[in-house]
């Protein structure tokens, strides 16, 4: 066997790097040398059987069954929006994260970040030990250094010390922060995030007089209005929004009715794609639109808003939209919901709170939940802190998490101010842009390897429990906070237990603690909602001058990318996942409208100079349908200079235009061609369906009149096969139905599949050549006018055709059918002719053009699922319906002497889906969920006229249009 480098200190290039190296062809001489060497090696290595070692435990583990996964509940912290997770571990090694069904913020669903977080644990670029002044150090060194500083600080009451954290909602962290405040009363505490909902929280505080979070209940809403809010994908609590939204639109669950979603937004988002009515509206004009809605509601009889000053709107279409929306809201009093995005100003949020109250939504679709034990972001505090740092008033600065030198508003010049601090500490998972400026860098522990706790926005408490011992000498934020306050190290477990002694009832503490670790959430009751005082707010808002809705200049809007604020920049899965709207991977071009492109004479990929308030940025542009005319969307998180081997230098740092005064959007920008083009890897360059009914959709009314529209969309002769059919009458016959009415296009399935099935990352050059390896391709189509179309998504993986065209052309029988209807790949038979891929009408097969796995760092390999074969160069691969999960479930059932129950086995995509769009099961069982879904009138087979008889079906999409606006 090949000798392995000692784990985990080896640094072999990542596969994406390795793949990139093939960009340049080797010279003839090098080619011959490689060939002769590999021939000689091939001859030698075949002579001997590889020797493998078996290392049994020294002491046996209780409940450990070798080769079977064990699942543990935990929590994934993310600002004030933690989500419960269920982690799959193999022999003590976490390999997959899914949403926890009992946690209110996850409800069993997950997003791309939850799915990809496990890859960060095994990132070979994580820092492995503390650093002092750029040189390696030990934790004892830091403890000793801090002790010395602490004595000095204590003597002056903590004056000169500042602690900068990211926002959090954690009883333990909050308690330790209090402890630090008591020990060093003069110390400054600042909280700031790269992506924050400061204006929303500020508005909510103004409404309730204390820190609260407005929690929306999409499931109870019949009319939802999102103003510049990507509530289903990008905003806080989006998982539960998506879950509730899907529930409110499931025809079966609602007696055949559906909720209606109105969206007004500057840039096309997934929420906009899901909308029944979408209005393009620049972010700057959203305030006017909200005000116009209030005035229209007042005009139509909503008493508190009578005589509300109506701003003038741009055009008649907008006025018609607002009028129809107002009528719909009034017709559904108490069952509507209005929300604005975090980018919007506090006044807009306040106005919507007032509207929600006047329409009777409070207590049903919107609750103000008191926040406790949290740290909430405040840009003003950060500005004050930076000023003090620059003035030399801060002698000691501790930064717990975050990367302010990269992400902080550009006008603060945090990096320059940081250089002036004498003793600075940065806790972070890698040596990043901030770490190189601080005197101390401390490695932060991943949440899968540390103890902690979280509080959801409705105050449900849960614990973060480690799945694995820390891989490196890293500490959690709570451990460092305790070290700061007490001057000595404490283990995270003890710190969390100290906190929970006061939270759980003293009698039976151990039992309830263990039960909570098992369940993943504490039984303690959530907080009750507060009643906001909006009378005063309303009076104040009324006094404000009417906002203008006109916009003659360009505006720039900032929005988080798949990398969020850059924290996931080194996560190759998130870099390579195509953006669901633009389908671009590995880049963040500025998104512009067709109109602007025409006006400025710009084409896709062209470089522009974007100027705002005297600052400028060179960035390529990409034309996106549905973009507001005068909006330019800039995605945060790219252009990192110290992210690691994957993320460094990818994309453009748009933070250079982001100031503390307007972190969400800013008007007054100019755009000018800068000359040159930038290559961009786009995974889907066509926009429409070319007249074929791939995604079938109809209005709700149309569906009621013609329920069979989906199947009638294609005319074809009787489908008779030339082949001798398989007999699919016994055992399990697996099938899948994907409900396009529930799918919001969030990509969670794609990443879940990548994680579950050891799918490699190929890099930007290969994506540009169409060689991405994702087994689930999320097709995105636009229909309607090119400038302002509707967007639909369709996840396409192998359809497991019963008369599969791929099987008929394979010369070596590497892809064949099994008795359960699966189209299976025998990788070891595949010789890589790629005929199958050519013959696949769905283009669902992926080919390994290179060996993407073998050169991976050993650490990176730890994320691989041991139940799935790792494919070699020259081998075709595709969706297997998670064959490993089927085998596991069937075997479990066999051992227990029963059959696999319906719903017992779930594919990775199905488990990840936050809206429950995917149903999977046995088609032979007429009572199974998948059989019922397949029998639904909306179900149809993609390209059924080809008579390949796919096992995966789709359910047509419906839009609940307002008859007034059709």
């Amino acid at each position: 066997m090949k000798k392995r480098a000692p784990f985990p200190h080896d640094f072999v290039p990542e596969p994406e790097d390795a793949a990139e190296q093939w960009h340049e062809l080797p010279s003839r001489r090098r080619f011959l040398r490689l060939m002769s060497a590999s021939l000689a090696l091939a001859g030698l290595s075949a002579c001997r059987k590889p020797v493998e070692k078996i290392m049994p435990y020294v002491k046996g583990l209780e409940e450990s069954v070798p080769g079977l996964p064990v699942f543990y509940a935990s929590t994934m912290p993310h600002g004030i929006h933690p989500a419960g997770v269920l982690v799959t571990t193999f022999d003590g090694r976490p390999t997959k994260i899914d949403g926890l069904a009992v946690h209110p913020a996850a409800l069993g669903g997950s997003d791309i970040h939850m799915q990809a977080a496990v890859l960060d644990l095994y990132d070979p670029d994580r820092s492995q030990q503390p650093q002092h002044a750029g040189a390696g150090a030990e934790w004892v060194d830091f403890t000793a250094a801090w002790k010395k500083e602490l004595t000095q600080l204590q003597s002056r009451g903590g004056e000169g010390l500042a602690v900068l954290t990211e926002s959090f909602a954690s009883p333990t962290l909050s308690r330790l922060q209090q402890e630090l405040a008591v020990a060093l009363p003069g110390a400054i505490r600042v909280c700031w995030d790269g992506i924050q909902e400061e204006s929303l929280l500020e508005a909510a505080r103004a409404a309730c007089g204390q820190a609260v979070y407005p929690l929306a209940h999409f499931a109870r809403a019949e009319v939802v209005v999102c103003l510049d809010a990507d509530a289903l994908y990008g905003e806080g609590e989006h998982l539960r929004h998506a879950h509730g939204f899907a529930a409110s639109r499931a025809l079966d669950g609602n007696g055949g009715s559906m909720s209606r979603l109105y969206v007004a937004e500057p840039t096309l988002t997934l929420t906009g794609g899901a909308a029944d009515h979408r209005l393009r509206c620049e972010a700057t004009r959203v305030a006017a639109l909200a005000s116009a809605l209030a005035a229209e509601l007042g005009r139509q009889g909503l008493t508190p808003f009578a005589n509300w000053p109506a701003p003038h709107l741009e055009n008649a279409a907008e006025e018609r939209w607002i009028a129809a929306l107002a009528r719909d809201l009034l017709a559904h009093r108490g069952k509507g919901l209005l929300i604005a995005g975090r980018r919007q100003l506090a006044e807009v949020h306040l106005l919507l709170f007032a509207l929600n109250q006047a329409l009777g939504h409070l207590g049903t679709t919107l609750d103000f939940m008191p926040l406790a034990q949290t740290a909430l972001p405040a840009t003003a505090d950060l500005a004050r802190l930076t000023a003090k740092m620059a003035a030399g008033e801060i002698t000691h600065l501790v930064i717990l998490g975050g990367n302010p030198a990269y992400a902080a508003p550009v006008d603060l010049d945090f990096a320059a101010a940081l250089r002036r601090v004498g003793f600075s500490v940065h806790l972070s998972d890698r040596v990043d842009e901030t770490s190189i400026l601080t005197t101390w860098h401390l490695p932060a522990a991943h949440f899968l390897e540390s103890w902690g706790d979280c509080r959801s926005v409705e105050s449900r408490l849960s614990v973060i429990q480690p799945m694995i011992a820390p891989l490196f000498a890293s500490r959690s934020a709570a451990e460092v906070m305790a070290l700061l306050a007490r001057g000595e190290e404490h283990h995270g477990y003890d710190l969390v237990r100290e906190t929970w002694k006061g939270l759980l009832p003293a009698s039976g503490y151990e039992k309830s603690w263990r039960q909570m670790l098992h369940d993943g959430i504490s039984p303690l009751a959530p907080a009750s909602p507060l009643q906001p005082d909006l009378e005063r707010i309303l009076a104040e808002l009324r006094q404000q001058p009417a906002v203008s809705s006109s916009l003659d200049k360009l505006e720039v809007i900032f929005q988080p990318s798949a990398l969020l604020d850059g924290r996931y920049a080194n996560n190759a899965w998130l870099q390579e996942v195509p953006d669901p709207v633009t389908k671009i991977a590995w880049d963040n071009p500025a998104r512009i409208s067709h109109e602007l492109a025409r006006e400025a004479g710009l084409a896709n990929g062209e470089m522009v100079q974007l100027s705002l308030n005297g600052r400028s940025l060179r960035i390529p542009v990409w034309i996106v349908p549905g973009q507001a005319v005068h909006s330019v969307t800039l995605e945060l998180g790219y252009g990192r200079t110290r992210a690691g081997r994957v993320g460094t230098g990818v994309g453009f740092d748009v933070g250079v235009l982001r100031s503390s005064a307007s972190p969400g959007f800013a008007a007054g920008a100019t755009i000018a061609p800068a000359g040159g083009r930038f290559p961009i890897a786009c995974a889907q360059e066509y926009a429409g369906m070319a007249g074929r009914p791939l995604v079938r959709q109809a209005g709700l009314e149309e569906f009621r009149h013609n329920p069979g529209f989906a199947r009638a969309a294609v005319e074809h002769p009787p489908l008779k096969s030339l082949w001798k059919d398989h007999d699919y009458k016994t055992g399990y016959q697996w099938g899948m139905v994907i409900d396009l009415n529930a799918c919001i296009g969030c990509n969670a399935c794609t990443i879940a599949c990548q994680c579950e099935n050891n799918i490699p990352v190929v890099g930007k050059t290969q994506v540009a050549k169409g060689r991405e390896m994702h087994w689930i391709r999320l097709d995105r189509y636009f229909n309607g006018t090119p400038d302002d179309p509707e967007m639909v998504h369709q996840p396409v993986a192998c359809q497991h055709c019963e008369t599969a065209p791929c099987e008929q052309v394979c010369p070596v029988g590497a892809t064949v059918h099994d008795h359960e209807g699966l189209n299976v790949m025998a990788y070891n038979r595949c010789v890589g002719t790629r005929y199958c891929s050519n013959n696949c009408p769905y283009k669902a097969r992926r080919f390994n053009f290179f060996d993407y796995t073998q050169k991976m760092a050993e650490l990176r390999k730890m994320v691989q699922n041991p139940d799935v074969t790792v494919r070699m160069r020259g081998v075709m691969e595709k969706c297997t319906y998670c064959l490993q999960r089927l085998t596991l479930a069937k075997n479990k059932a066999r051992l227990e002497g029963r059959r696999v129950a319906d719903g017992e086995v779930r594919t990775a995509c199905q488990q990840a889906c936050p809206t429950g769009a995917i149903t999977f099961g046995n088609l032979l069982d007429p009572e199974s969920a998948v059989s019922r879904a397949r029998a639904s009138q909306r179900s149809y087979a993609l390209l059924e006229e080809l008579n390949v008889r796919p096992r995966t079906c789709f359910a047509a999409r419906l839009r609940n249009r307002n008859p007034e606006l059709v």
Partner: protein
Amino acid sequence: MAQLFKRWSNYVPLILVVVAMLGLATVIGFFSYFGSPRFTDVGYAPQQPVPYSHALHAGDLGMDCRYCHHAIEAAPHANLPPTQTCMNCHEILLPESSRLMPVRESWSTGLPIAWNRIHLLPDYAYFNHSAHLHAGVGCSSCHGLITRMAVVAQAEPLSMGWCLACHRHPESSLRPAGEITSMVWKPDADQARFAAVIMKQNKIAPPQDCSGCHR
């Protein structure tokens, strides 16, 4: 002009063809015998770090396989016993034996004993112990008469053809649940009838699809 080629040269092409065919048969025969797992793998008996004798423990002392390999009925992988299992007895028995030195070392240092793997399937083949035991395939069907092996050697080729032979006709390998770990069990005259009954009763239908073992 005299004939350039003698009369016998008419036979040269024939001889060449015969020689070539013989040569080809030899090469094919050579590789199909010397290259097959039946030659390369059967009998593989590497030196182990501890001279543990199955013949002594499982044979003479009559310990059940599952005393050490306890997870086989539930797990896909057959586990090797932790050092702790050895020490259960050897804390008291032969505590000074030099042959047990690596075991005691492992016990005191906490580092595992690195055994050499004998039964090695390719990484793309997934074998599940629990499924086979549950169906009534005994240990010795694949591992041979372990009770007679002082040093464990591979008894069967474990090649795909060998696996499939049994998946196609499992009748002769199925035994009653109580005899799974027995090394002396032999199919008797009634085996065909017994196998038919148990296969029907337990719905035993060994998969012959690719997906049965490869995923």
